Structures are given as C-alpha cells and as structure tokens.
C-alpha cells in the first residue's frame, strides 16, 4: 500500500528503482507465493525426504540409522507387501475397466437418446460422488453382509450366497463395486461434456454421406472423445492405485481387520507399517514403490493412447 507514495517523488528525477514493471512483477510473485511456499514445505520437501527416509531405519522418534537398500529388501521379501500389490492391481482393474465402459455407455445414451431430462440425470448420476467414502462403505457393508440384500438377490436368481466380507474374491468384488458406484456417474458426466463439445455438423455431413449410427460412433464420437477417455483413464488409474478408505473401513469392523489379506492395498500396507508398527523406513520404501508404479502406469497410459492416436490419424 505504501508503494505509490515511494514511487511518485522518484519518478520526477531519475529512473526510479520501483518502476511500474518491477512493481507489477513483485505483485505477481507475491500473489503466487502462498502456493509455492506451502508446496515447498508440505509437498516438495516431504517428497524428497521420503526418498531419503527409505534408506534409513527409523521409528519417527529415536535416531535414524542408515541401512541402504535394506528397507526395499524387507518389503519385497514380505509376502504381505506382494499381496497388497496384487490386490491393488486386481481391484484397480475390476473397479476401473467396467466403470469406464459403463460411463461411456451412459454418456452416449444421455447425449443422443433424449435431451429432456438431461439435467436431472446428471444430478442423479453425480450424487454418489459427493457422498463421503466412509458413508458409502458403511452403506455397502450392509448390502454386502452375509444375509444382506446382494446375497438375497443372488439367491433369488438361483445362485449361492457369496462371502463378500471375508472371501478372497468376495471382498474384492464388494470393494470394486463401491469404487464403481462412486465414480461411474462422475466419469459419465465428464464424457457427456466431451460429447457436447463435438460439433453437430460433423454428424450431419456423416449422415449425408450415409454413415449409420454405429459408423458415426466409431469414426466421429470415439476419436473426438479421446482426450476425455485418456484423462478419465489416467485419473481412475491413479485413484485406483491409492485405494485406501474403502478397504480400511470395510474390513475394519473388528478394529484390526484393515490389514486383512483379502483387501489389503499398497496404501493400507504403508499406513499400517508407519502408524501401526512404527516402521517409517519400510513405509517410505513402500511409498517410493507406489510412486514408481504410478509413474509406470501413467507412462503406459500415454504410450497406449499415443499409439492409438497415430492409427486414428491415418484413418482420418
């Protein structure tokens, strides 16, 4: 606020230190500084420290002891780590792949089938996403109980009950269902906004050329929707790798059950190593592994989508 007073007398004589340009630069840096300050302390520094920490034995209280790669040896020779790893991938696939197809289907239907209740449907489909994951998990744990509604339905169509809260596959199905319920509508709305951004005259000229509905879908809708599909897939993949609350709450009924093997994920493993067992070193190593897996999947995602783009380009 004192700046104008400082600047004006100088402006008369010689070139002032606080020129208009300098002042506006300082203002801009000030405006963006909160993010960079907070991110340095609570984002960047912790990330580097995690890598550093993964080479030490530490209980977060006493002195740190350098152990080299021992933490990585420890977790990679722990069967529970590998179970958490494969669980994360299996539940990630089960929750993400059908979800994206369903979301696409819903978006296409919503876009082309009718326009009348579009707004209402959008709100209804989005509702699961605003609910807390804890609430979602609690509701689904009643539906997936031994005598719960899902088993009642299964029996109704002549199938056997499934142990959704203790079986190897049961737990995974239950948890993937929760993930799907929460995110399918959200993704459908993203896809819908993508569909709405495609110009209608493309369809009109295709129709004039005699393209039927299926051909239009394959050669106009899907290629133009591709950025959205890539975005949603990437976001879902990253989200799936960080799965924590659903298994933690769903399997936590007895208080200690959150690390039960049927549903332990990489983040649950990390959490229990650090905050239950006090092994910050191995937990840090787990975090690094999680990060590497995330990078790997993001790169895979990019490569696959780039490959697709090239073939798409040739067609067009």
């Amino acid at each position: 606020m004192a700046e104008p007073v400082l600047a004006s007398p100088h402006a008369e004589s010689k070139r002032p230190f606080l020129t208009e340009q300098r002042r506006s630069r300082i203002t801009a840096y000030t405006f963006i500084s909160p993010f960079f300050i907070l991110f340095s302390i609570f984002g960047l520094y912790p990330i580097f420290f995690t890598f550093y920490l993964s080479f030490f034995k530490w209980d977060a209280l006493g002195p740190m002891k350098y152990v080299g790669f021992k933490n990585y040896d420890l977790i990679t020779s722990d069967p529970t780590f590998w179970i958490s790893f494969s669980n994360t991938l299996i539940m990630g696939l089960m929750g993400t792949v059908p979800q994206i197809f369903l979301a696409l289907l819903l978006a296409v239907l919503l876009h082309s089938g009718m326009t009348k209740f579009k707004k209402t449907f959008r709100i209804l489909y989005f509702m699961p996403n605003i609910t807390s994951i804890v609430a979602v998990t609690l509701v689904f744990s009643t539906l997936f109980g031994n005598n719960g509604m899902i088993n009642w339905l299964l029996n109704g169509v002549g199938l056997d009950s499934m142990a959704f809260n203790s079986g190897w596959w049961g737990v995974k199905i239950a948890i993937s269902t929760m993930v799907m319920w929460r995110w399918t509508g959200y993704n459908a709305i993203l896809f819908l906004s993508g569909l709405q951004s495609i110009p209608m005259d493309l369809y009109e000229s295709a129709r004039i050329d005699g393209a039927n509905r299926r051909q239009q879908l394959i050669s106009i809708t899907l290629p133009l929707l591709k950025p959205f599909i890539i975005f949603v897939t990437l976001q879902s993949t990253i989200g799936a790798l960080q799965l924590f609350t659903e298994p933690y709450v769903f399997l936590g009924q007895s208080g200690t059950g959150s690390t039960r093997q049927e549903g332990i994920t990489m983040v649950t493993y990390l959490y229990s190593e650090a905050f239950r067992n006090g092994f910050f070193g191995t937990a840090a190593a787990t975090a690094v592994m999680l990060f590497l897996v995330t990078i790997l999947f993001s790169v895979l995602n990019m490569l696959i989508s780039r490959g697709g783009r090239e073939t798409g380009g040739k067609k067009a």
Partner: protein
Amino acid sequence: MSTLRIFRKKPDDLGLFGKLGFYFVLILGALVSVFPFYWMFVVGTNDKGAVFHVPPLLTIGDQFFVNFKRVLEKADFFQALGNSLFVSSMVTISVVFFCTLAGYAFAKYEFPGKNMLFIFVIATLIVPQQLGVLPTYVIMAKLHWIDSFKALVVPAMVNAFGIFWMRQYISAAVPTELIEAGRIDGGGHFRIFWNIAVPVITPAMATLGILNFMTVWNDFFWPLVVLKNKEHYTIQIALQQLFTTRDGLDYGMIMSATFTATLPLLIVFLLFSRWVIAGLTSGAIKS
C-alpha cells in the same frame, strides 16, 4: 407424442423401442445411483434387525430418533460435525482467496518464469498424496501440530487445481483493458484485483469453494493419521469409529448417523448442483 415417433423420420431415429431401451438403461443407472441413499434412510429409521430382514425391508420406519440417541451415547456426533464444519470452512475460505490471487496473477500479469511456474503448478497435480505423507507427519510432530486442526488446515490452504481453474476462468472472463484502465487511474494492484476482478469472477470462486468444501469434508486418510483425541475427530473419523464397536454392529445407529452426516452436503449439492457440475467439467477438459 411417442406414437408419432414409431415412424422413423430421420435415418438414425431409434424408434419407440430404441427409445424405451434408452430410458430403461438411463433410469436403471439413476436408480442404482440413488438407492443407497434411500437404503441408508430405511436402515436408519428401522430397528436393529432391519438390515438383515428377509426379504429386504424397503419401508421407512419410525425409529430414527431412538437410533440417533444411541449415536449420541457412543460419539460426540455434533462436536465432530462442528469440527468438520470448522476445518472445511477455514480451508475453503483460504483456498478460494489464495487460488484466486494466484490464478489472477497467472492470467493477467507478465513476469519472468511465468510459463514454467504454471507448468510446475500443473505437474504437482499428478504426484500422489501418499508419497509425502510420512515426512509431513514428522513436520507436524516437530511443530506440535499433531492432533490439532492446524495440521489439517495449513497444508491445504492453497492448491494446484484451484489455481489452474481460476486462471482459466479469469483469462476468459476479466477483460485486460479494465485492469489497465484501473492502473491508469492509479489503483493499487490489490485494490484493482479486489474491486474489478473479484466481482466478475464470483461464480467461479463459489464453484471452487463448493468443490473444495466437499473434498475437505469427505477427506479420511489425513485426519485419520493426525487426529488422536476423540474431541478433535472430524465427522468421517467419528463415523468410522461407530463402525468399529466390538459388541456387534448396530446398523440402525450407524445409518442414522451416516444419514445425518450426509444430509447437509446433499442439500448443499442439490442447491448448487449446476455450479458444481459445471465446475467439475470445465476443470477437467483442458489437460
């Protein structure tokens, strides 16, 4: 109306049966989306055994207050609700303010390193939260912020998504000439921001505020890590605690609590749904 549509007017008109199929799938999807909310209420208003009633009970009962009384015996429900309200409001006010400032700077100022810094902001979006969790916990311990709301509020006071989103909106909605005119009239930088830019971008700020409020309100992992004392629990932790009672699960109680905790957010969402959805979709497209 639909009888006329049986005769296909356009080559890709689906006809009556196609339309019925569309409706069927769309309505089924909507029912699946909404049913758990209804079920929450059904269980919360019926007595203990209602969850596993065969065939499933689908009618609303009158036991809601009886169930909810047991919630109040087991947990400081309203305290937890108040804690969540406090934390979410503090974070939201701060996020909206700082992200708008930063977004404004990125949209309307020229300064060395601008593009690089903005790309950096975007890049931070892909780093998983869990990667920095352990050192952040240690920092909190060093600052003696464990079990305090500061641990929840301070690290969340500004975020990359908000900056990105405000920048996009400000670039499009605030005319640069207006800002220049303000400068020529001798207005200070912050004064121009406050009096010229902010009034124009209030809708975007509101959307960011609601989206952010919901995210903080629903967060579970970080509060679980830093909060130790019952009286500091946020509502999510309090709900989860109700679920860990060892002496048999009282679903009537749990669901009456879950429903009560979900209701405020649901109402806010239904009131502002158009903004929320617009915010969601416009934030996601550009990457």
